[in-house]
């Protein structure tokens, strides 16, 4: 029920945006955001954008885990050899 999906804003008209995910377009109201712009990724729930996604924050923890995964893969590779 609290399902919400990240979508990219393609265009904005008044308080309504056309948003897109995987080639499918939806309409989303922007009443709950104060600074949404074209190209931003937003979380959409029941026809409203409820938050703008923070790219920097998103990448930070992902990078750490990616490094750990690559490190342990290399280590396992060494063990196998």
């Amino acid at each position, binding site marked *: *029920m*609290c*399902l*919400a999906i*990240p979508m*990219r804003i393609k265009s904005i008209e008044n308080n309504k945006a056309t948003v897109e*995910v*995987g080639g499918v377009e939806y309409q989303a*109201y922007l*009443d*709950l*955001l*104060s600074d949404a712009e074209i190209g931003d*990724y937003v*979380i959409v*729930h*029941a*026809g*409203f954008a*409820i*938050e703008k*996604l*923070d*790219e920097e*924050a*998103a990448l*930070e*923890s*992902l990078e750490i*885990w*990616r490094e*750990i*995964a690559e490190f*342990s*893969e290399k280590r396992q590779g060494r063990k196998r050899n």
Partner: protein
Amino acid sequence: MVKYIDEYRDPQISNSIAQSIKKIMPDSAINLMEVCGGHTITIFKYGIRKLLPDNLNLISGPGCPVCVTSNDFIDRAIAISHLDDVIITTFGDMIRVPGSDSSLSKEKASGADIRICYSPMDAVDIAENSPDSEIVFLGIGFETTAPLVAASILAAKSKSLNNFSVLSSHKTMPQAMKALLDSGDIALNGFICPGHVSTITGIGMYEFLAKDYKMPCVVSGFEPVDMLETIFMLVKQIAEGRSEVENQYVRSVKPEGNTKAVKLMNEVFEPTDMPWRGLGVITGSGLKIKEKYQDFDAYKKFQVDFPEPKEFPGCICGDIMRGVKVPTQCKLFKKVCTPEDPKGACMVSDEGTCATYLKYASLD
């Protein structure tokens, strides 16, 4: 590649986090509750439980709004649907939930005008285009949804619509989490806190659980990498003897939340005591429409009578919502109660615990 989704489903990263959890896992059993129904789906759909140590248990909680909606609310909605010139509008999840004697879908089949909306704004559009009918929107959902419904009431007001109203059963999460702990029914070691509720509210509302109840809390996203990282953060807190509120879902959840959305919600709604299926009436856990907007309050607009609500005999949805029992312990599960003919609310919604158990049983 779909941004913000694919990278959080990376199997290599998921396995790496699962290995890290095993490394720091204490010998004693750990019980974590995923409060949100969306998280229950993530856990089952991606087979998360198979990646975890045997002594780490995940317990589903009361975070499926449809499932915790009381029969009283459904019976009332059905009674209103019988009035002349009324159109009931609702999220799709609600339509098949059984009330005491019927459901909205059965009433629809018998001729009541009941329509599914993707957004509460669709209901406002219907009101604008049907001036001779009364449009009643069924307001269910937690803090994620209440601001949107508030926005739809404000939109109806600005359009001077006098034929739009909301039957509010909106609920707020922290009071239910507190009620679960106060009941003493289950022994928990940490909460996987809802990501989209927290996107609206921020993370401060869980502080009392960490401080007063010594309960580790981590706000989580909805992809498998999110869920595993959240579990890692909780196990780490437990292993280190900490109980804090942490935020895994940083790309969506700001510490202070979405203040504009909270302001909208507080403009239209105020706290009230609310009945929850399985948990009873919880003080201050609901949202009712403020006096100022009473013209949009369906409780005030439509006085209806209906018999005392009753539950389907043998249904244990209430116990499942409290995390005390699992669906396989229900005698009705898969036999009498199925997605095609649900007897309890937990079998209806996609994120209902019984529906999720049934759908993804082969993966668990």
